[in-house]
């Protein structure tokens, strides 16, 4: 018999609505899985079992009273620990916020909770979702449920690992340069980086404000669509949000043109990834889509522009962590001088990687460098967007790999910032342009590590992406593959 954690989010939601499984039972099951697995995987920083259980009981009461609730009501979810949750620790995996409990919830959390969502845990990530790896977490790295010799990817590895390990049925993460998509790809999950402005950022602790976007992580595109239906849409608290229509409907792939940028299949690409991605394209062709080669430069200039803009914005966004109002305070009480106090707070509160980003960003914005770096990067950013627009004028969607290689081993990543960023070569364009990008699993490599591919669409084509993803998953079973060993007794 299928175990509860093997169900998709929508499937569990239906069983809860049909009262085959109760919401408290789902919560108990999730807590049991966390108990069993999380000491190995380290996907979670905080488990909010008690409040989750109470919410579940309240929801069950409403269901028992015959009330009809939205599709995901009663389904426990995990939330990346840089998304504010009222009365639940929100640490950003940093010592700086190790004790910070927000007095308010992010808009996405308010919306999910109003629809019966139950926040059961806060997931681990690279400190402040920076740096493309989760090894910078103050709480240690997130290991991959598929192989604990490998990382879950990142920076937001915790939300993908939690779903892949069957600890929760879906999760919310953030994506600044590809973080959410990388960890989905490395953990065999489906994840969407929505169009910039389609999901409110209110309550997301900002890393790089013009690039950050919250998105869903789940087993399938259908589950992601169900989450998007609840969280997307304009928010009066975030003036960068825009009205958008989110109506994923079944699509016929006949006549859909999918562009395949040939430049993606570089020699550096792990050959198995190239093959799996080509196979995914072939599968879509079998379903009726026309696959066309497109000229699209995925040059390093996009990565460079990303690095500079992300660092510049992060340096200002993280300035508020000064030890005055909340968060970490240095133990040493002798701080006669204000600037000493700031130095000690920030030196001790931030990890090395965060400090490196802040220093880089501070330099980029300094007099004499602003024009040379920040303005140059902004121009490059416009070019990246124009190129992507041109490519998307010739086709409906673009299909690319997600990462040049499958899940990395701990400590194996490059030491310098630029090469770390280079791993994001396939993903940063969607952040720089604001366009939506969906990651879908499409195979396993020789180590049995998942491989994913990416579909990029024009602005506000999020529903189309998810519909195409659903069509693909109706014809394939990669998204149903489970990590073989972790915690399974059989």
């Amino acid at each position, binding site marked *: 018999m299928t175990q509860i954690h093997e169900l998709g989010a929508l499937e569990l939601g239906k069983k809860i609505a049909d009262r085959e499984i109760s919401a408290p039972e789902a919560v108990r099951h999730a807590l049991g899985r966390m108990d069993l697995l999380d000491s190995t995987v380290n996907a979670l920083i905080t488990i909010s079992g008690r409040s989750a259980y109470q919410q579940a009981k309240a929801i069950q009461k409403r269901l028992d009273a015959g009330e009809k609730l939205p599709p995901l009501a009663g389904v426990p979810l995990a939330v990346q620990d840089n998304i504010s949750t009222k009365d639940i620790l*929100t640490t950003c995996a940093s010592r700086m916020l190790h004790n910070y409990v927000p007095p*308010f919830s992010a808009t996405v959390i308010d919306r999910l909770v109003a629809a019966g969502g139950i926040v059961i845990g806060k997931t681990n990530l690279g400190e402040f979702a920076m740096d493309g790896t989760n090894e910078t977490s103050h709480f240690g790295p997130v290991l991959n449920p598929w192989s604990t010799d490998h990382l879950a990817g990142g920076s937001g590895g915790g939300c993908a690992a939690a779903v892949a390990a069957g600890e929760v049925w879906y999760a919310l993460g953030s994506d600044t340069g590809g973080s959410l998509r990388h960890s989905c790809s490395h953990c065999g999950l489906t994840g969407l980086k929505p169009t910039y402005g389609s999901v409110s950022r209110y309550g997301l602790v900002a890393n790089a404000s013009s690039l950050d976007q919250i998105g869903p992580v789940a087993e399938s595109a259908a589950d992601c669509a169900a989450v998007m239906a609840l969280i997307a849409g304009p928010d009066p608290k975030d003036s960068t949000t825009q009205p958008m229509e989110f109506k994923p409907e079944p699509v016929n792939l006949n006549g859909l043109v999918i562009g395949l940028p040939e430049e993606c299949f570089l020699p550096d690409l792990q050959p198995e990834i190239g093959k799996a991605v080509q196979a995914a394209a072939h599968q879509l062709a079998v379903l009726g889509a026309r696959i066309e080669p497109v000229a699209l430069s995925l040059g390093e200039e996009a990565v460079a522009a990303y690095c500079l803009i992300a660092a510049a914005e992060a340096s200002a966004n993280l300035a508020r962590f000064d030890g005055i109002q909340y968060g970490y305070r240095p133990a040493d009480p002798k701080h006669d001088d204000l600037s000493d106090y700031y130095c000690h707070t920030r030196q001790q509160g931030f990890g090395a990687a965060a400090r490196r980003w802040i220093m880089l960003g501070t330099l980029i*914005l300094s007099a004499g460098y*602003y024009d040379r770096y920040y303005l140059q990067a902004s121009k490059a950013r416009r070019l990246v967007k124009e190129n992507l627009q041109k490519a998307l004028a010739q086709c409906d969607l673009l299909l690319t790999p997600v990462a040049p290689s499958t899940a990395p081993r701990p400590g194996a990543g490059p030491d310098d910032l630029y090469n770390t960023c280079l791993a994001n070569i396939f993903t940063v364009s969607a952040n720089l342009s604001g366009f939506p990008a969906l990651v879908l699993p499409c195979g396993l490599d020789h180590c049995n590590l998942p491989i994913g591919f990416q579909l990029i669409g024009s602005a506000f084509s999020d529903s189309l992406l998810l519909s195409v993803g659903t069509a693909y998953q109706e014809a394939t079973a990669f998204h149903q593959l489970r990590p073989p060993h972790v915690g399974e007794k059989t």
Partner: protein
Amino acid sequence: MTWDTIVGLEVHVELATTSKIFCGCPTLFGRPPNTQCCPVCSGFPGALPVLNQQVIEYALRVCLATDCTINSLIRFDRKNYFYPDLPKGYQISQQHQPIGRGGKLVITTDNGDKAIGIHEIHIEEDAGKLIHDPQGKHTLVDYNRCGIPLLEIISRPDLNSAEEALDYLDKLRRLLLFIGVSDCRMEEGSLRADVNVSVRPTGSKVLGTRTELKNMSSMKAMALAIAYESRRQIKILTEGGRIRQETRRWDENEKRSFALRIKENVEDYRYFPDPDLMAIRINDHWIKNTRELLPELPDAKYQRYLTTLDLTAYEASILTSHPALADLFEATVAICGRAKDVAGWIMGEWLQECNQRACRPQDLKVTPEKLARLVRLLAEGDITRGTARQVFIQMIDNQADPDDYVHRHNLRMIRDIKTIDAAIDQAMAAHPRSVADYRAGKNKVRTFLVGQAMRVLQGKADPALLNRRLLEKLNTPD
């Protein structure tokens, strides 16, 4: 050698919007610390700013009233620096695309009108306030002021004396009050001026090294600070020294300024566009609408009072010093005419009462309609000025109706010659020494006798008539 003083003003004015610039918190002054703030204005992680449109509207009014060129696309930038009163570690301001540039404000000098250039007007958010605890152990932060909308109005260095700077600030204050964007209270900090001062030998075209003066909490303090700084710089240069570029803090008790920090390398605020806020397009339609809604500006009002209402420059200047006075004046004149009489009453009795009660002109609860009737009673000779004052107090304190009060208390002016003569006779009979003194050539005692006769009639006698009759009687020996 003679020296010229060069002064430029950076005026920060708090806009009187009902809520803050990027959140819904109220902008009330003097509330208990940290009771007027929310996650947005106190810089909590994840909180985002949302622009209050009224701020743009108010800023637009100021730009139009000072003839600035309006930027059709404005943006907000982050100004990065660390200070405990700045909870985000940056201030949202405008550096690259401010709302207005290149305006002017006309001031009055001894040599006639002078246009002072306005270099730039930009919008920003205010910071909080540090409170030093009386025991001196801690410094506390009050975030109530964080996110109050500010306009920074930067003049060109076109001012040449403390007097000109004062007049500029006064003209600016009047303008802001009349267009209704600020209450401009220096003592509450809703209007703050930082002053740049330098000196140079008369005739020189090169600007000298300037210093920046801060912490002047009144117009008077600003004038003193400029005069002090100009003298200080001239003394240093005359003695062969050089001026250091520095910020100086005015000490109101000591009446002198002290150097705060030396600005050898200019602070780098690392401005960049705030990605949380969208650019705002200000189209011609918006500008046209705002221009049409601008009220008559104080300079135009002043001219109109001089030319069509025949007021003196002094009267026109006082009445255009605050919209409450101008509004009261115009509403009253609209009912009873008699601009001179109304102006006289407002500038005399009205302001005097405000002074005595330590209240603002608009706080006396007397309607223009009642004031008009009081002025009419006085001007038409129905009551004496003394009676009018007495009635006015009743109007303020007890909402008395002037006509009704005069009638019920029988306060109409006495013009009956017999009654007046009788009163004079009584007064003269009671003070034979004074009568004798007058007749011996001491003219001054006449005033005393007028007062005595008036007293007999409880101050209600027609003063001109009483004067005339008394004079006649005094000059006619028995």
